[in-house]
Structures are given as C-alpha cells and as structure tokens.
C-alpha cells in the first residue's frame, strides 16, 4: 500500500507559514479518519480466494495485499460495506462495532 504515513500536523505560527492559497505538497496525511464507522468488514482469510474484487471496488482505497491475502486498513475504512456486498465467495462479513 502506498498510503503516506500519518504525520503530526504542526499549526502555522505566522501567516507566512501558510501556503499561498489552498495548495500544498501532496502526500500529507494529518489524521486518521474512520470515526463514523458503525459496521466493520472482517475478512475470513480461509474463504478468501484473493480475487481482489474488494480491492477494486473499495471507494476509499483501504484494502491492500498482505501476505498474499487482502487486508483492511481500519484507520481509514468508513464501513460502507461495498466490499462485503461484492465479495463473490462471501469471505467478508460486516460486524457491528463495539461501543
């Protein structure tokens, strides 16, 4: 996965620390974003046949290949369930988030 690492956002101290207009070097990820998830997708790795359909359909690009099977980056998964719905072998189940 080529998602940049989350880096700490340093608040500008002076107006000149801001960029000129809303434009900045790409690749900065100041915070995780998954707080609004109520169901989370869980992959059954035994069932998974590694077809990568889930990887293709994920609207947020949070599915990635891990040890030859797909995995999910829960720091950014919003829990939309598209992957579970599209999985051809029912290897992904949506489970209610605790709390």
């Amino acid at each position, binding site marked *: 996965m080529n998602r940049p690492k989350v880096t700490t956002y340093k608040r500008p101290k002076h107006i000149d620390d*801001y960029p*000129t*207009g*809303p*434009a*900045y*070097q790409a*690749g900065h990820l100041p915070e995780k974003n998954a707080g609004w998830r109520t169901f989370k997708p869980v992959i059954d790795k035994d069932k998974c046949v590694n077809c990568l359909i889930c990887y293709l359909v994920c609207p947020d690009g949070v599915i990635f290949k891990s040890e030859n099977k797909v995995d999910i980056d829960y720091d950014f998964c919003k829990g939309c369930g598209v992957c579970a719905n599209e999985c051809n072998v029912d290897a992904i189940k949506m489970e209610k988030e605790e709390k």
Partner: protein
Amino acid sequence: MSQEKIFVSGDEAVAYGARLARPHVVAAYPITPQTVVVERISEMVEDGSFATDFMHVESEHSAISAVMGASSVGARTFTATSSQGLAYMAEGLHYASGGRFPIVMMNANRSLALPWSIFGDLRDSLSLLDSGWIQVYVENAQEALDMTIQAYKIAEHQKVLTPFMVNLDGFILTHTYEEIMVPEQQKVDEFLPDFKTPNKMSPEEPKNLGFSTSPADNMEFKYQQHQAMLNSFKIIEETDKDFGNIFGRYYGGLLEGYRTDDAEAILVTVGSVTGTTRVVVDKLRKEGKKVGLIKLRYLRPFPKKELIEAIGQTTRVGVLDKDISFGYEGTIFTNVRSAISEMQNVESVNYVGGMGGRDISKSDIEFMFTDLLETSPAERKSNVQFINMGVETYE
C-alpha cells in the same frame, strides 16, 4: 521606439493587447458587446499570429473554469466576458481569486437584466467588487490595450497572485474606433517576465490543489487574499511607471487628477465618461470656474490614500455612478464616501445616471458641476440625485 499605429475598436485593441501578452491558453464565450474580442483572437489564432490554445467553451462558467485549470499547471491565461456572462461566472470568480490564479479577463461593462439590455452601465462588475479580483476601468481603447498588458505583470507578481479584470464601457469603448499605438512585441516580452506560480500542478512535484479548510484555517486564507490585494497598490504604481518609461504612456497609477489643484468642485469619474468630463472641465475653466476631475482607475484595490491627496483642499466632491445599489446609493459613491470620511468639511453628492446605456452628455456634466458649486447642502433634499430622468419623479 517605433510603435505601429492602427485604427481599431476597443474590443480589437484588447485582442491586440492579449496577443502581445502571449497567454498560453484563451477560453472565452462570445457575448455582446465583447464578441469582437473573441472573434479577433479566433482569427489571430487561425492566421498563426497568436500562438495560444484557444478553447471554444460552451459557456462563461466553463470559460472561467477552463482558464483556472490552465492556470493551475502554470499557463498564462486570458478570458473575456460581459454582463450576464460575468454574472454566470460569479462562482468561478471567487474560486479563481481564492485559488490565487492570476487570470486576466476583459469585461465589457453592460447592464444586467431585467429589463434586458445590451447597453452599458457598471452594474455588472460593481456587483462583483467583493469577488477578490483587481478591477481597473479604462477611458479609451489605447488604455484598454495597455492595461491588458500591464494586467499580467501586476496579477502575476509573486506578492499579488490575484486575478485581474480590465473593464471597458460596452459600445462606448468596445465598438467605437480610435487610432492607437501598438507596442513592439520584443519590448512587451522584455517588460513582461514569464509566469511563475508557487502552486504549479506537475507530476514531478505533486500538489493537492484547491483543498477545503475547517474554520480553524479558512480566515487565514482570506486574510492572505486581502494582504495580496493591499500589496498590489505598490506593484500597480511601479508597473504603470515602468510601462510609461518604456512605452511612453503613464496613466497616473491608481487614479488621475485633472485640473484639481485649486478646484472648488471635483467630479469623480470612472471609465469612458472621464473623456467627456475633461472637455467640460476645460470649458468651465475657460469661463473662470474652478473645477476639476478625478479619474478613479482602480476600484479594487481602492485607492483611499491617493483619493484623499487628490481631493486636497477641495470641499465639494461629486461622484458620477453608472450604477445604483437599490435602497442605498451608487456603489462608487459608497466607496468614495468611506474613503474620505475622515476629511473635514467635504460635501459629497452622488449623481446616478447613464444606466442601461443612457447617454451622459456634456450638458449633463455641466449641470453636475453647477449643482456642486451653487447648491448649498441645506437646499439638498438628498445627496443621491438621478440625472437626466426622462419623466417627472417624486424627487
């Protein structure tokens, strides 16, 4: 210094100016009375004399969007519009200034519907004074050409990076013919450096452009825009002086005072009506009346300091507005009054006229000067006067 002398309309002068500035991309949609600009540029591209990517877009909203996109990859851009087209661009105008894209646009000042009218007044561009664009208003075709060139130098300055609107009166300037001087291409190339933007979109240095902000940062970006506009005061003066030194035409920077030194009454004018007012000032001066005029060239940034200096000791100031902000007064008047509010003993009167293309004649202007000189403040029912109404009113 050899400059070619040509006989052209104001629209054509703008097309010549745009060609000399060598924008990489032109995107524009034709609208009366700007159409000739688009036609001439189209012909110049066709005959090979104007090397630009000319995009035939389907609307003004697309025109402003296209030049914004082009500007974001570091291209110099040009567009032109008028009235309804400008209003249709309104969303994009704020976007362009917020994104700090130094687009240059010609606007042919024309009345806004309804009632439908193709003729001139300033209600289109004045309704967008707050869109974050620099606004200059020209008096004649020569100034239109020259300001189209100057516009790039000011807008693209690294301390400014703000889009620039060159306004000329619909028909009065766009469709009348004048003899004008066309600067040499080589001299313009020397005057106008290549466009460089800190926000260039490129594969080598990927950028996130036009992002959103939370309330924690939004105001800082707006403050920056304000600072950039304030920075432009100095750049406008310097650019006009440099232009004058190289090409022999200096326009006075932010504004021009004409016979104001010992004036008892001054009329503040914007755009082509300044020319008519000069003639009237000269006539009245011959008759021994001490009158002068101030041609406000820039309305954003607004030259408060220069205006106070130009008014000097004069105590009677009229403001001619081809505009009315319904329920208040002319918008130029509001701006002038705010600027001179700290001046003591200045009586100011707003003359509203010329709307929807109604002529403002020499006798109309003579009436304004006479009214300024002879009517005492106590006699005035209102300091907002509609001039040259065709019918009786309740005034």
